[in-house]
């Protein structure tokens, strides 16, 4: 772009529009986190249910030790992405702040459940509430309806889940994750690839 000083207001407007368009859709592929955590938690919920209720395996809860593995994978992926990233948008920054907050809330809840020794029986009500907050706010920020609606349905599932025992809360938790992480995560990945194609 040459640095000519004489140009019309129409040309100025066209430069502004053109440049804003170039940064408008530079949102990173956030679907990775939804798919990683979605399939991980879904798998853990279903396998805990099968081991606890059907096989009556006493160490059914061991599968949850996979959660720190998810944390390490997320951290490695996040730091690799940060190295590649050449711009930082306000959207990305808001999402990072939101999910760091949600992550701390999950961690605090796990500690509360471990210390109290009783609250874990209703733990999924609160986990689903956190899925609801995280995904519905992300859906609103990204203007992505499947995430927003998935999150909103989770608010209802959280209320419904309080009436059920831990065993069935596992299945409600799996359903919540399917609706708010897995399905929107796959749709988000499709949207990301479509946008990349159209910008190429």
């Amino acid at each position, binding site marked *: *772009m*040459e*640095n*000519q*000083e004489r*140009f019309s*207001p*129409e*040309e*100025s*407007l066209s*430069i*502004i529009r*053109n*440049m*804003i368009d*170039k*940064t*408008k859709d*530079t949102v990173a592929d956030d679907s990775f986190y939804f798919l990683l955590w979605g399939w991980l938690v879904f798998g853990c919920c279903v396998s805990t249910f099968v081991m606890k209720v059907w096989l009556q395996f006493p160490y059914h809860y061991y599968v949850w030790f996979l959660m720190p593995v998810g944390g390490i994978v997320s951290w490695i992926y996040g730091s690799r992405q940060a*190295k590649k990233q*050449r*711009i*930082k*948008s*306000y959207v*990305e*920054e808001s999402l990072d702040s939101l999910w760091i907050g949600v992550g701390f809330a999950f961690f605090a809840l796990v500690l509360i459940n471990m210390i109290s020794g009783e609250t874990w029986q209703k733990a999924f009500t609160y986990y689903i509430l956190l899925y609801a907050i995280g995904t519905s706010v992300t859906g609103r920020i990204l203007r992505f309806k499947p995430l927003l609606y998935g999150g909103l349905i989770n608010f209802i599932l959280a209320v419904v889940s309080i009436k059920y025992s831990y065993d069935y809360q596992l299945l409600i938790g799996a359903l919540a994750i399917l609706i708010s992480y897995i399905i929107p995560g796959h749709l988000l990945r499709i949207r990301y690839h479509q946008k990349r194609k159209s910008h190429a």
Partner: protein
Amino acid sequence: MFKELDPILHSQLRLAVMSLLIGIKEAEFTFIREKTNATAGNLSVQVQKLKDAGYIEVIKQFKENYPQTICKITPRGLEAFDEYVKALQQYLQAGKE
């Protein structure tokens, strides 16, 4: 009475840089160069002019042992851009009448 167009912003490359930075928090110099198709030398000069006017902040740091230059718009730059767009609107409106 028409508002005068800010001479700092009324330059194709400087306006392009400001327009790129307006919707994001910060961008690397290489990203701006790629999107504006400007040469590194010309872009450096224009970025320096925007910095001297207090419209952008330029941060020089190291990333993976390589020098990295990051640009971000300042509140003063945001205000100037807003004024520039308002003045443009006046000109365009006058053109229609």
